[in-house]
């Protein structure tokens, strides 16, 4: 007998035995997940075959048969049967900048490069020299706006010419950065003991959440002029930015309120018992915990805001979808909607997936074991 049965040991002298063979490791995983019964084995094999077929076709279309350099759709078709990426390659400048003048394009590029050191200390608490870098983050909105718009020595580039991914980034980054503090204040206001503040915040949230973003954008593009004193002209992009921010703030407020409501009453009582004031309790105790709980909801709103920025195409701003539409209207490239829209989709997917991954990482970083 190679291994004694467990009952053969004296009490208190029982060593840890290894698990039965084939129940752990790669083999165990395969057995439990893919080949646990004849039916599951059949499903596994069929799935593998289907996946192989699909991947083979996709690789053909996307890469092997694809054409990158051509002057028109007709030329593409002569060179290969796959995707015609030439449509994207020849109009890439428009996709990225819209009609931003070519001589000035170093400015959005520099603004984008500077965005990295501005965001790093905010997103990652282990950034070297974080405290000093945060000052730069604070100054970045002004620096970025100056670089892209101009003035103070730089020639002014009118906002009408902004387009493509540049426009998406401006809308997305500004909307996210401005809506978070506003959303937090709205969430706190909705929980306030002061009736006037509570009613004001609740009304604001409910009205903005109850109206489609497109409606708000139309209001921004047309109606707002009626309310403003005559003679003042308010830049369209600025108006859109305000609307997008307010809209996202209303949603964020509800995400943050969910987090605030998950904080046990004992946390408030413990803070009270120490003699902490309302704002100290909020800033030091409840808000950090509430924000941590709300991370998935907050990032959800951010991703939604980022993608919803494409709706500005309806009021005539030239976002990536607007550029795509313009390209498809060109007789030379007519009909290549698959390639064009896939490219736009890829851009959005990469940005949104990055946000989603970041939020997962942050949740792990902030977890402090149990509760």
């Amino acid at each position, binding site marked *: 007998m190679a291994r004694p049965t467990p009952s053969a040991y004296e009490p208190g002298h029982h060593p840890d035995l290894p698990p039965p063979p084939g129940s752990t490791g790669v083999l165990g995983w395969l057995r439990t997940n893919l080949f646990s019964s004849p039916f599951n084995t059949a499903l596994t094999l069929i799935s593998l075959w289907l996946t192989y077929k699909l991947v083979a076709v996709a690789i053909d279309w996307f890469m092997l048969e694809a054409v990158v350099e051509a002057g028109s759709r007709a030329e593409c078709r002569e060179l290969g049967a796959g995707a015609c990426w030439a449509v994207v390659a020849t109009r890439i400048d428009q996709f990225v900048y819209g009609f931003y003048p070519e001589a000035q394009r170093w400015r959005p590029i520099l603004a984008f490069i500077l965005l990295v050191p501005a965001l790093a200390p905010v997103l990652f608490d282990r950034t070297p020299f974080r405290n000093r870098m945060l000052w730069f983050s604070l100054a970045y909105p002004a620096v970025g706006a100056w670089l892209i718009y101009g003035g103070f020595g730089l020639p002014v580039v009118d906002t009408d010419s902004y387009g493509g991914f540049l426009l998406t980034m401006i809308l997305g980054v500004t909307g996210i950065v401005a809506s978070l503090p506003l959303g937090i204040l709205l969430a706190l206001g909705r929980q306030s003991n002061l009736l006037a503040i509570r009613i004001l915040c609740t009304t604001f949230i409910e009205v903005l959440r109850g109206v489609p973003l497109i409606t708000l954008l139309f209001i921004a593009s047309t109606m707002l002029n009626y309310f403003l004193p005559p003679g003042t002209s308010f830049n369209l992009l600025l108006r859109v930015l305000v609307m997008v921010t307010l809209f996202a703030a209303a949603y964020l407020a509800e995400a943050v309120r969910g987090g605030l409501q998950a904080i046990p009453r004992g*946390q408030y*009582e413990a803070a009270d*018992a*120490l*003699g902490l*004031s309302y704002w100290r309790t909020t800033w030091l*105790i409840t808000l*950090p915990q509430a924000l941590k709980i709300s991370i998935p909801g907050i990032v959800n709103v951010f991703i939604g805001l980022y993608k919803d920025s494409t709706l500005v195409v309806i009021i005539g701003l030239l976002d990536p979808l607007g550029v795509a539409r313009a390209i498809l209207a060109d007789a030379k490239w007519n009909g290549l909607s698959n390639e064009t829209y896939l490219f736009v989709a890829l851009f959005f997917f990469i940005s949104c997936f990055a946000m989603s991954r970041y939020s997962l990482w942050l949740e792990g970083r902030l977890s402090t074991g149990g509760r």
Partner: protein
Amino acid sequence: MNIIEEDTHRIESSIDPSKVMVEITNMNKWFGAFHVLKNVNLRVTAGERIVICGPSGSGKSTLIRCINRLEVHQQGIIMVDGTELTRDLKNIEQIRSEVGMVFQHFNLFPHLTVLENCTLGPVWVRKLPRSEAEKIACRYLARVRIPEQADKYPGQLSGGQQQRVAIARALCMQPRIMLFDEPTSALDPEMIKEVLDTMIELAESGMTMLVVTHEMGFARRAADRVIFMDGGEIIEENAPDRFFDKPQNDRTKLFLSQILSH
């Protein structure tokens, strides 16, 4: 060891047994239409250790929560260390910083380390420099015997350790009065002793304490007075020996027979 002795000495030398720390006069409180505290009168002098017991729902937790205004009383007067509790926020925050509280469910701040939990009050309420607050925190963490856990998060500690951190957190504010609201009720049996030991040590150092508990061993050993509450009223109060051996009221006798029968 020296520091602890010094500290004990500091508290003891400041005790003036004639000084009234808490005085509650004809106090009434309602939850909606429910009369939870009925005409309560209580006077606690400096250095006194009071144990409050009674069946659940008798208002004992509500009573001590009124002392730092976690609950608001509607009638009567509560004086804490010579100051009357009023609606005035500044006054409430001032009194709260003088009165430490330990809760049944610890209520540590889970997103802060043990050390940060202990320095939060001293830094933000007492406005001490961080370095000094940390020195005080380390001293009290040593006193509750968990100096080595300072950099852990509460979620990584056992229940008994968490409650001792909660005691240290309250002591870091260097309060004149400590309130304990059923401090051992949420603990596993094997962890109750470590918390009671800490409390007994604190009692021996001369701290004014009001403790809501069913730990009768603690009451006998550390209390100067035991108060029995039922139905929102103080039914009986006496020195522990007389309270346990010769209870006067029938309700007290019934209660004691129920908790001491095993």
